[in-house]
């Protein structure tokens, strides 16, 4: 309760400091994990392995970036894995007869359309996000099965294969796509009025509406972004694996949500960032990599993952308790 005007002058600096403070916990967790991994395997801290990790986390990372939008508005998108699956089979089928120029935009469009339906149902239909996207999960997965008859479609297009497996400037292309998505979404959230509104809606939807924020329109946009990024993750999936299988991405929604939550974004909305999500994704990715490098039993790996999620969230919630 101090009347400290000088403090106001430090506003931006203080802002940055408090942001850093909030994310210090999760960054610290990542650093500790990297130290542990380096200790556990002498192969961990090598350039090819670190690039592998980046490529491995690209799919879930891109999903998690989209999921961050939904969770920031106090919503959730359970359909991202299924929408990924739908886009994967679309990419595969379209590539049988068309080139990349046709297949990629149409495949991405499918994700945006699924997101649009989600958004309209949630914002205008008043259906809770959990229910609406649960419905979409089943619906999109069903479409993918109908569309393929349940059989995987092999992708024989070499250019498409290169998207998932090639390098630009020494970086795997999927990792670059993840970084591009992170950067673009980070800018949108931090530096645009839309981003502000996303936080405001999540923080207090009624207040945002009374303040003249076009809540419904922005919510639709949030789910469209989420769907579009799911399809982008589908592009990475299909091109990395050269197969359009309708079961692609089963359960990925939970991995994405875990990455977002470990990254410090509140499930109650209004607090968090894509940077945190990125770190959260890396934490989960590095852990899996470390366990594989050291050859830990797959049954035991699950224990580690579960414990990590709970411990990370617990550690992060500590500093905010005054």
């Amino acid at each position: 309760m101090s009347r400290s005007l000088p403090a106001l002058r430090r506003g931006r600096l203080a802002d940055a400091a408090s942001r850093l403070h909030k994310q210090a916990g999760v960054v610290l967790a990542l650093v500790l994990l990297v130290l542990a991994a380096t200790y556990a395997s002498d192969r961990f801290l090598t350039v090819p392995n670190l690039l592998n990790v980046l490529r491995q986390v690209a799919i879930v990372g891109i999903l998690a970036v989209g999921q961050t939008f939904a969770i920031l508005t106090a919503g959730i998108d359970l359909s991202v894995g299924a929408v990924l699956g739908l886009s994967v089979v679309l990419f595969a089928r379209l590539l049988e007869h068309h080139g990349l120029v046709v297949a990629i935009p149409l495949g991405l469009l499918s994700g945006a359309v699924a997101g649009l339906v989600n958004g309209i149902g949630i914002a205008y239909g008043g259906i809770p996000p959990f229910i609406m996207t649960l419905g979409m999960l089943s619906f999109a997965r069903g479409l993918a099965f109908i569309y393929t008859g349940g059989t995987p479609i092999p992708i024989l297009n070499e250019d498409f294969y290169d998207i998932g497996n090639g390098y630009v400037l020494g970086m795997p292309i999927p990792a670059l796509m993840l970084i591009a998505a992170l950067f673009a979404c980070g800018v949108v959230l931090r530096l645009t009025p839309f981003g502000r509104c996303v936080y405001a809606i999540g923080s207090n939807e009624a207040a945002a509406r009374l303040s003249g924020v076009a809540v419904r329109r922005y919510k639709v946009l949030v789910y469209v972004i989420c769907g579009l990024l799911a399809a982008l993750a589908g592009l990475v999936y299909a091109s990395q694996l050269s197969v359009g299988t309708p079961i692609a991405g089963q359960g990925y929604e939970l991995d994405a949500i875990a990455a977002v939550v470990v990254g410090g974004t509140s499930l109650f909305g209004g607090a968090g960032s894509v940077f945190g999500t990125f770190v959260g994704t890396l934490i989960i990715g590095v852990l899996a990599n470390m366990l594989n490098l050291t050859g830990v039993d797959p049954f035991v790996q699950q224990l580690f993952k579960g414990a990590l999620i709970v411990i990370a969230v617990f550690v992060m919630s500590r500093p905010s308790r005054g």
Partner: protein
Amino acid sequence: MEARGIWKYFDGNPVLSGVDLAIQHSEVHAVVGENGAGKSTLIKVLGGIYQPDRGILLIDGAPRRLRSPRDALAHGIVVIHQELSLAPHLSSEQNIFLGHFPVTRSGLVDRREMRRRTEVLFDRLSISVDPGCPVGQLSIAQQQMVEIAKALSLDAKVLILDEPSAVLDDDRLQILFGVIRRLRDQGLGLVYISHHLDEIFSIADRVTVLRDGRPTGHAPVADVTEDWLVGRMIGRDFASSPPQSRASGRIAIELRGLSRAGQFDDISFSVREGQVVGLAGLVGAGRSEVAQAVIGAVRPSSGSIAVFEKAVRITGPHAASRLGIAYVTEDRKTCGLLANRPVRENLTISNLKRFSRLCFMRPRHELRFARDLIARLDIRLPGMGHEIRKLSGGNQQKVLIGRALAVRPKILILDEPTRGVDIGAKQEIYAIIERLLAQRVAIILISSELEEILRLSDQIVVLRRGRVAATLSRTQASEAAIMRAAAGGL
């Protein structure tokens, strides 16, 4: 129970600095202070929610540590918070005995015994509530009584009431006072927290004043005056500027026969630039509903609105703000604050267009505006990056007013602008209103405090059951006239 030399720090800042409080049997002890003076923290220390960093608690003369609210309960200390903690779908008797149901020999809940004990408790409080009725269907006042009954069922010796009057109208308050006196006469020690000084004088035996976490006064109520209390609370003089007559301009907004089925009917009045129209009435008379309709949050079923003599259709708060109409809600918590966002974002959310260019925010521009507004409204905060929920009620309210000002309103609707705000902040909000009027803003003021309405309004529209019961000019208006119209002639 007694607290001696209590200190409590948050983030290294003292919130309580050496507070003493002695609670005697058969006594009502009032604790007063501005918002942010440390009253809530003190209650949480007494109730075992916080542990003091220094100082001790004595219960019946023996030092005790209260590690949790359960500990406090075990010593007979019960806190009734402003937000009641009842399960809305359970009946009042189930709420009262939640966690300590009377059981039969076979281990089942003994319904007959529960009903009997509930009736005994209600008798003790002299209230009539159906013990089987779900709590969610009771009025707030009745719920409060259920909460008190619950405290008694736990064999409370010390009962702490945190601003119980905030949610009550005058009649209900008198009933509450009756209950409090009865409990005092039955030997309980009570702590009564309030902003309202008149309540202190009518109910308390002894008063402790806090300012900025420090005890600044302690005396039997019979020995003190209102001026003394106010002086101790704010530590400075405040001048209540007598209202001057104001220059009037064009008609800024006019409501013509505005109606909404089941809520309000045929509401007509107009507000001129630089003037205040006060909307008075009892709780539930439809005042806030009218305001919501004006900003388009709900759709009126008939009638029309004209802004600067032009009929307009307001489709939502978005459209309202484009017409220069801004609204400050009565319900800060659920409809106002972006609680976990920084103050700056709370200020500018209403008009992001003003702080952006080509789809990007202009942070410097925004920050300059925020700083300017914070200085102009004298909002006190530790830093720009701080979440708004860490501010006191008065400062939060000023931020919400600032948010409304960001749209450069020509018409401003203030719904209970000083509710839950301390005396100092109240005066400052009045000063802000006067300044806005000088800038020719038209204001619709909704308030349950007659003094506030009388002091600020050029014209007063009194609503009763959704209809205009009277329209009073400044010269006609008096507390009696308003009450007569609001309550339907006495």
